[in-house]
C-alpha cells in the first residue's frame, strides 16, 4: 500500500521531503521521482543514504586498463622481440600513450556498466509499461511496515 504525493512546486516538494526524512521515515520506504536532478535534494538525502558506489567501478576499470595496457605492450614486444629504429624493446615513453588510452577506455566503459547495475537499468518492467510522472516531483511512500 503506497501513497503518492505530487508537487508542482519544487519548494514544497523539498520541504515535504525534509520533513519526512527528519521524521525518521527510513529512506528505503520512499520512492522519490524528479523531472531533473537537484543539488539541494542531494544534500538533504546525503545525510540519510550512503554515497554512490560508482567510483569503485570507475577505479577498477581504470586500474585494469592501466595494468592491461602495460601488459599488452610489454608482453607483445617480448613475445617476438623486433628492433625498430634503434629504440629499446621496452619503449616506455611510447607505450605510455597506449596505457593512457586503455585506462580511459576501460574506466569509462566499466563506469557505464556500474551505473546500469547500480540503477537497475535497463529495467524491462518499465520498458514494457513506462511509469511517467511528467514534470512534477513525486514522493511514493510505502505504508506497509514489517
Amino acid at each position, binding site marked *: 500500500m503506497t501513497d503518492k504525493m505530487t508537487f*508542482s*512546486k*519544487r*519548494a514544497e516538494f523539498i520541504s515535504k521531503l525534509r520533513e519526512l526524512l527528519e521524521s525518521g521515515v527510513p529512506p528505503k520506504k520512499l*520512492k*522519490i*521521482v*524528479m*523531472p*531533473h*536532478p*537537484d543539488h539541494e*535534494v*542531494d544534500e538533504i*538525502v546525503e545525510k540519510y543514504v550512503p*554515497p*554512490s558506489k*560508482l*567510483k569503485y567501478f*570507475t577505479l577498477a576499470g*581504470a586500474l585494469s586498463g592501466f595494468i592491461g595496457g602495460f601488459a*599488452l*605492450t610489454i608482453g*607483445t*614486444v617480448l*613475445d*617476438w622481440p623486433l628492433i*625498430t*629504429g634503434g629504440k629499446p624493446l621496452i*619503449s616506455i615513453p*611510447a607505450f605510455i*600513450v*597506449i596505457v593512457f*588510452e*586503455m585506462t*580511459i*577506455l576501460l*574506466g*569509462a*566503459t566499466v*563506469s*557505464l556498466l*556500474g*551505473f*546500469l547495475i*547500480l*540503477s*537497475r*537499468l535497463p*529495467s*524491462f*518492467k*518499465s*520498458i514494457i509499461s*513506462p*511509469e*511517467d510522472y*511528467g*514534470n*512534477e516531483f513525486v514522493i511514493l511512500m510505502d505504508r506497509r511496515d514489517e
Partner: protein
Amino acid sequence: MNRKDADPQDTSSGKKGNPTAIDYKDQLERDILYALKKPTPLYWGGLALAAGLVIWGAISWSIQIRTGLGVTGLNNPVGWGAYITNFVFWVGIAHSGTLISAILFLFRAKFRSRFNRSAEAMTVFAVMTAGLFPLIHLGRVWFFYWLFPYPNQRYLWVNFRSPLIWDVFAVSTYFTVSAIFFYVGMIPDLAIIRRLKEGIGKRIYSILSMGWVGTIKQWRHYNQLYKFLAALATPLVISVHSVVSWDFAMSVIPGWHTTIFAPYFVAGAIFSGCAMVITLVVPMRKMFRLEKHITVDHFDKLARLLLFTSLIVGYAYIVEYTLAFWSGNVYEEGQFIYRAVGDYAFFYWLMITCNVVLPLTLFVKKLRRNISYLFVLSLFVNVGMWFERFNIIVMSLAHDFDPYNFGFYIPSIIELGITFGSFGWFFMFFLIFAKTLPILSITELKEEVHD
C-alpha cells in the same frame, strides 16, 4: 499530453498570468521536441544532397580500391595528402563536442547546456567520419585488420611504437567514450520523448531510454557517472589530438618534427570544433525556432572561446616561424620560407587570414553578438583549418631535406570525391539526428528553471 498543440508559438499557457515552473517546463519540452515534427521538403532535400555526396565518395573509393592508390595525386616525396588532411580535420571537429560537454561541465559554465547535445552528436559523427580515412589511405585496405593487436598463429603483433597504432587506440577509445557520453546524457530526455510519443514511437523510445524513471537513486548514480565521464573525457580529448599531432611530430621531417605540435593541434581542434558548432547550430536554431532558448549571449560566450583558441593557434604559428630562424637550422628555415613564398603560398596566407586575422575581429563586441557574422566567420574558420592541416602535411613533405627530392602534389578528382563524400556522410548523420533525438538537453534546461 496531446502533441497537436506542441507548437512553440502557442506559449499562451506560459504567457498569460504568471507562468508556473510546470507550465514552463512543459513549454520547454514542446519547444525542443518541435524539431521532431514531420520533416519539411527542405529537410528532405538536404538529406538527399548529403546522401548523394556519400554515394559519390563511395564510388570514388571503390575505383581506388580496384586500381590502386595511383588514382590519387600522391607521389614520391608526398606520401600523404588529402586523406590524412581530412582525417585530422574531422578528428579536430570532433573535439569541441567533448570540450563543450566535458570541460565546460567541470568549469560549470552555464552556456554549455545550449550547445552540448548538438556538440556531442557532432563529436560522434565526426569521429565516425574521421575513422574512415586511415582505412581509405591504406595501400592494401583489405588488410586493415592487421592494424589491430589480435592473437594469431604467426605471433605477429602490431608495433606499439608506431604513432599510427596510437591513433588506432586513441580514436577508437575516443569514439567509444564520446558515444557513451552522448547516450548517457540523453537517457532522461529519451524518457521524456517516450512520455510524449504514442504507438510504435513510444515503444522505440522506451527501449532507448531503458525504462528510465528518474528516481532519486537513479539520479544520484547518474550524476556520479556524468561527473566521472566528464573527468575521464577531459584528459582524453587532450590526448587524442596530441596523438594525432604526433603522427607528424614523431617524424624527423622539418615542419613536422616540432614539440609544440600537441598543444597547438589541440587548440586548433577546439578552434575548428567551435566553428563547426556555430556552423551547425545557427541554422538549426533558425529552422527549429529555438531563438528563445539559444540566445545571443550564449553565442557571445562561444565566440569568446573561438577567439581564445584562435589566439593560441596564432601563438603557435608565430613561435614555429620565429624559432625556425632563431635556430639557424637550414632545413627548418628552408621549410618555412617555402611555406610563405613556395608553390602553396596562397593556401598558407589563406590559412593565416582565416585562422588568425579574421577571428581577431571578435574582440569587437558588436561582431561577437552578430549571429550571421559569426556564421560566416565560422565557415571561413572551417576552410582555414582544413588548409592548415593540408599545409602542414603536404608542404613539409614536398620540401624536406634533400633538394633532389623536392616535389609537388595536388589532390586528384578521386580524392576530392572522397573528401566531399565525407562531408555528405557527416551531414547525413547529423540531419537524421536532428529529426530523431532531442537537439537540446531538456533536463539540463529544466534544472535552470526555478519557481
